[in-house]
C-alpha cells in the first residue's frame, strides 16, 4: 500500500473549490464524508487532497426561486432538508426519502448532493429526485452546467457529471410540487441499513397523462424510473396496480449480493409496487 500524505483544504467559494480540484490529481470534494471517508478507510479511494465544501457561502441554503422552483444547496444535511417546511409541504416524497437514509446522526452530516454524486443504486434520495424530475446544477472547469437527474446516473458510482464539476444545488421544479405517494423499502433490519430494494410510487394531483411516478432503487445498476408502469397507472389508476407491478418486475435488473438475491428483489418489486399503487387510492 502506498502511504501518501493527505492534504485537507477548505474552500471559501465554488471558484476556489474548482481551482483547488484542478491543481492536483486525485483531489476529491468533501461534503458530509459519510461515503467518502468510509471508502478511503476501505482503500477504495486514496485522495491526495480533500476539498471541504461546507464553508462555501450559499451551498447551505434552501431557497424558493422566482419561478417557484426549490433549490437545495449541496451542503444542506439530509435532516435539515427533511424538516424544511417547503419540502414537507410541496415535496413530501423527498422528505420521506431523506428520512430513509441511515440514522439521525448520519442525516445530520450526510448531504443529498453527496448521495447523488456517490451514485449508489441504493441511494434513497434518488428515488424522490427522479420522481420529481429534479435537476443537478454544477459548476465545472468548463463553466456551469445544469443536468437533468433523468440520465444522470450511469452505473454504480458513475454519473454524467463532468470531471471536476462541483454540484452547487439540486433543484426541484415548481411543477413537481404536490406529487404524493409513498416510498417503501426493505432492509435486513429496522435501524440503519442500506435498502435491499426501494420502491416509490407517486401521483401528481392534477392526474391524467404523465401524473404517475414509479421509481425503483437497488434493483438495477442505477435507480430506475419505470415509464411503462407509470403509463398503466395513468390510464387506469389503482385498478392497474397488479399490471404496474408486473411492468416494474419486468423492467428491473437486480443482482444477487449479500443483501438479497435477484429473485427476491424482483418479486418484492412486484409486491411493493402493487402495495404503493393500491395505497394511492
Amino acid at each position, binding site marked *: *500500500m502506498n*502511504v501518501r500524505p493527505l492534504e485537507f483544504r477548505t474552500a471559501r467559494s465554488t471558484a476556489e473549490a474548482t481551482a483547488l480540484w484542478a491543481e492536483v490529481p486525485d483531489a476529491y470534494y468533501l461534503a458530509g464524508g459519510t461515503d467518502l471517508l468510509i471508502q478511503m478507510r*476501505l482503500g477504495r479511494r486514496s485522495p491526495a487532497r480533500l476539498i471541504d465544501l461546507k464553508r462555501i457561502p450559499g451551498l447551505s441554503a434552501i431557497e424558493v426561486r422566482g419561478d417557484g422552483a426549490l433549490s437545495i444547496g449541496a451542503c444542506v444535511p439530509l435532516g435539515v432538508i427533511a424538516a424544511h417546511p417547503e419540502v414537507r409541504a410541496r415535496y413530501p416524497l423527498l422528505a420521506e426519502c431523506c428520512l430513509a437514509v441511515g440514522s439521525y446522526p448520519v442525516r445530520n452530516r450526510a448531504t443529498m448532493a453527496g448521495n447523488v454524486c456517490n451514485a449508489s443504486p441504493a441511494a434513497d434520495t434518488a428515488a424522490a429526485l427522479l420522481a420529481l424530475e429534479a435537476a443537478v446544477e454544477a459548476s465545472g472547469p468548463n463553466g456551469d452546467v445544469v443536468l437533468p437527474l433523468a440520465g444522470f446516473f450511469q452505473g454504480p458510482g458513475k454519473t454524467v457529471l463532468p470531471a471536476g464539476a462541483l454540484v452547487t444545488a439540486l433543484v426541484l421544479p415548481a411543477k413537481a410540487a404536490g406529487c404524493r405517494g409513498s416510498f417503501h423499502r426493505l432492509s*435486513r433490519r429496522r*435501524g*440503519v441499513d442500506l435498502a435491499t430494494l426501494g420502491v416509490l410510487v407517486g401521483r401528481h394531483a392534477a392526474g391524467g397523462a404523465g401524473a404517475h411516478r414509479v421509481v425503483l432503487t437497488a434493483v438495477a445498476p442505477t435507480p430506475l424510473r419505470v415509464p411503462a408502469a407509470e403509463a398503466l397507472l395513468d390510464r387506469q389508476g389503482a385498478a392497474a396496480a397488479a399490471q404496474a407491478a408486473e411492468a416494474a418486475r419486468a423492467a428491473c435488473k437486480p443482482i444477487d449480493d*449479500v*443483501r438479497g438475491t435477484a429473485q427476491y428483489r424482483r418479486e418484492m418489486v412486484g409486491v411493493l409496487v402493487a402495495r404503493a399503487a393500491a395505497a394511492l387510492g
Partner: protein
Amino acid sequence: MSDKPTRWVGTEVPRVDGLEKVTGAARYTGDLKFPRMLHAVVVRSPHAHARVRDVRLEQAARVPGVRAVACGKDFPFHVGIYLKDQTVFATDRVRYVGDPVAAVAAETPEAAREAAARVEVDYEPLPVILDVADGMAPGATLVHPDLGSYECVPWITPKGGSNVCNHLKVRKGDYEAALRRCAHVVERSFSVPQVQHVPIEGHISVARMDGAGKLEVYTSAQSPFTVRHLLSACFKLPHGDVRVVVPHVGGGFGGKAGINLEPIAAALAMKARGRWVRVLVDRSEEFYAVVVRQGLEATLVTGVDKQGKVLAQKLLYLWNCGGYGGYGVNVVRAAGYTCGGAYEFPNLWGDSIGVYTNRPVGSAYRGFGMQEIHWALEQQMTMVAQEIGMDPVEFRLRNCLGPGKSTVTGQVLDEHSGRIDLCIRKVAEELGWGDGRKEPNRGRGIACAVKAPAMPNDAASSVLLKFCEDGMLEVLISGIDIGQGLKTVAAQFAAEALDLPFDKVRVRGLPDTDLSPYDWQTVASRQTWATGNAVLRAAENCKQQLLGMASRAFDAPASRLRLANGTVLDPETGRSLPFERLVMGYQFDDGHTIGGPVAAAASFIPEGLIFLDPETSQSPKPVAKWTFGAQGVEVRVDPETGQFTVERIVGCYDVGKVVHPSLIRGQTYGGMIQGLGTGVMEELLLDPQTGRPRNASLTDYKIPTTEDIPEKLEAHFVETPQADGPLGARGVGEHTMIPTPAAISDALFDACGIRVTRMPITAEKVRAALQAKKKEQPTP
C-alpha cells in the same frame, strides 16, 4: 444457603463502575499511551489454504522507522488453550483468510503499514475446504497433517490423519432397540452459520519485554491468568516473568476468552526489547481475523411412543471449527455432554464432532455451542410434538429433566439442580399458551435452554480482601467485569457477609497478574458463582479476625458478638467498636496492641467433578451445575414479503438467587437481543471459492440496533437454590441468548405454517418457505 433476609444481595444497589464508565474516566487498553510506543501491523493470509514456501522480511525491515519484524521462522512455537494446533505466525501453511503470517512494529502506524506491504510471502495455494461435509469426506485434504502430534489436554480426542479435531461420543441405554419400539420417528437437519461477537471494543494488546527479560502485556481479555499461562508456555518463560494486566474491557462475549493477539504483541516486543508494541485489529479484521463462533450442521432422529414420551434419540453435531480448534474443541465437548438439552432421553446415541475447515477460527462465544444445538433440538421437539398431535408445551413437560431425572451422561439431578418445568410453565402462562387465540399471521413459540459451565474440572477463582485505615473494604478479584456487573455483585456479597454499608466497599477489578489473586477465566457464566463463593469465604475469614479482636477488647466470648453496619457489636452490653478501630489492629487504653491489619484470601474450586467415560461419556457429575430456562416469543409476519417482527420475548430462568434485579434483567434482555440478532440477521458470509469474507464490515454484517429491539421484553426468575452457589446463586449470563432463535422459528411456524431450519431466519427465507408451501398445497 440460608433463608436469612439479606441486606444487599438481591437489592438494587448502584453499579459500582457506573460513574467511571458514564463519565469516561474508565480507561480501556486502547486509551493507554506508553512512552515511545511502537505500532504494529500484522500481515495476514489472503488465501484460505496455502503452503507458505517463503517469507522474506528484508524489504520490510528497511522501511525507515521499523523497529521489529517477525514471522513463523522466528517463533515456531505452538499455542492453544486445549489443543496446541496454532503457531504465533503461520510456519508451513496458512489455514484461513486472515491467518497471521508475519508482523512488523514501527515508530508510526504509517511506517508499519508501509513495511507490512513490503513483506514478501510465497504462497502455494491448496484446495480450500469450507464445509464440514467436505472436511469429513474420505480422502479430504488435511488442514492439519500433523494433527496426531499436537499436544492437547487428555479430555480432547483429535484424530490424526483426519480433519477431526475432537469427537465426543455419548451412549446411553440402547438406542437401536428403543427406536424399534417407537410409534413415530422424526428425522431433521438444521444448520447454523459462523457468526461474530462484534464487541464494541475490538481486540487490542500492548506488550513490552524489558531489559531484564520480563514480559508485560496490557490486553483487552477475559482471562489475564490464562493469557499469562499460555504466553509462558508458548515462549517458555517462567510465569513469574510474565505480567498480564487487563484494563476496562468493552465487551467480550467469549471472543476475548483464552489467548488471542497477545502472542503476536509479545513476539514483536521480544524483537524490540525495551519498547512497548501495540497490536490491534480494525473493525473489518475483527470479523474474521481473530475468532468467530463455530458453524453447526446437526441431524436429529427422535422416536416417540404413543403417549408422547421420547424413547430413542440420536444426535449428530458436526462443528465447523475453522482453521484452528485450540478453544473450539471444548465447544464440541460441551455440546456432546449437553447434547440432549433440557430433556431426559433414556436411550441416546450422540456424536459431537469438530471438523477443521479453511474458515475463520471458531472459539468461545456466549452460550458456548448451546444456542446452536438448541436451535436444532428445540425445533425438533416441537416438530415431534406436532407429528403426534400433542401440544409442544405439554410434550416438553412430559420429557424434560428435573429432580430425580437422568441427563445424557447419566447424572441424576437433585432438588438443587434447578427446575426447567417451572420455567416452561411460567413462560407458557405469560404467553397465554393454550388460550385458543389465533390471529392471522401472528404466532407464538416456546423454547428451552440449558447450559453448564464448560471448563476444566479444576477451574478456580480466588479473591483477596483487605481493609483501609478508615474501615473501607477493598475486594481484589480477577474476574473481569465485561459488562455483566461482576464488580457490583462482588461488592454485594462482601457487604452482605461483613454487614458493611455498601459505599464502604471498593472492588479492585482490573486485574494485574503480578498483584491480583488467581482466577481461571471470565467465561462459562461462572463468575457470580465462583468469585461470589470466594468472596463469601474470604469475608467469613475477615469476620472471624474482627470478632476475635473485639472479643478480647470487650472481654466477651466471640460467639456472642456480631457485625452490625460496619461495627462489631456486643448485643448484651450494647458496646460496639467501628471497623476503623479494628482493621489495623486494636489498641487497648494502655497502649498494647493486638491483631493486625485485617486481610484474607480465599478461593473456590468446584468439587466432586468426575471425568466423562471416554467411550460413552457417562459420568455421575461431569459439570459443576446446570442452569435451566425457557423463552417465549410472539411474532407478526408480512406473508407477501416474508418480513416479520418479533414483538415480544418472555424469559424465565432458574437462577437460584437473584443477586441484583436490574443487572439480571439487563443480562436477560441483552441475551434476548443477541439471540434475536444471531437468529434473524447475523451470518459471516464467505466467498464459496476463495473463502474470503464478503461482509466483514458493519455495513453488511448486521446486529440489532435499538430500533430492532422487540417492543416487549420480559424477564422472570425461579429461585431454586444451588447447593454450592453463593446464597444459592447460579450463572445465567450466557443462557439468556440460547433459546431465542428456536422460539422465533416456532412462532413463525405457528403464525404461517413454515419452518426455517438454516439460521438466520431472514425475510427472504421466510418468503421462500411460504412460496414452497403454497406450491405444495395449492389453494382450491
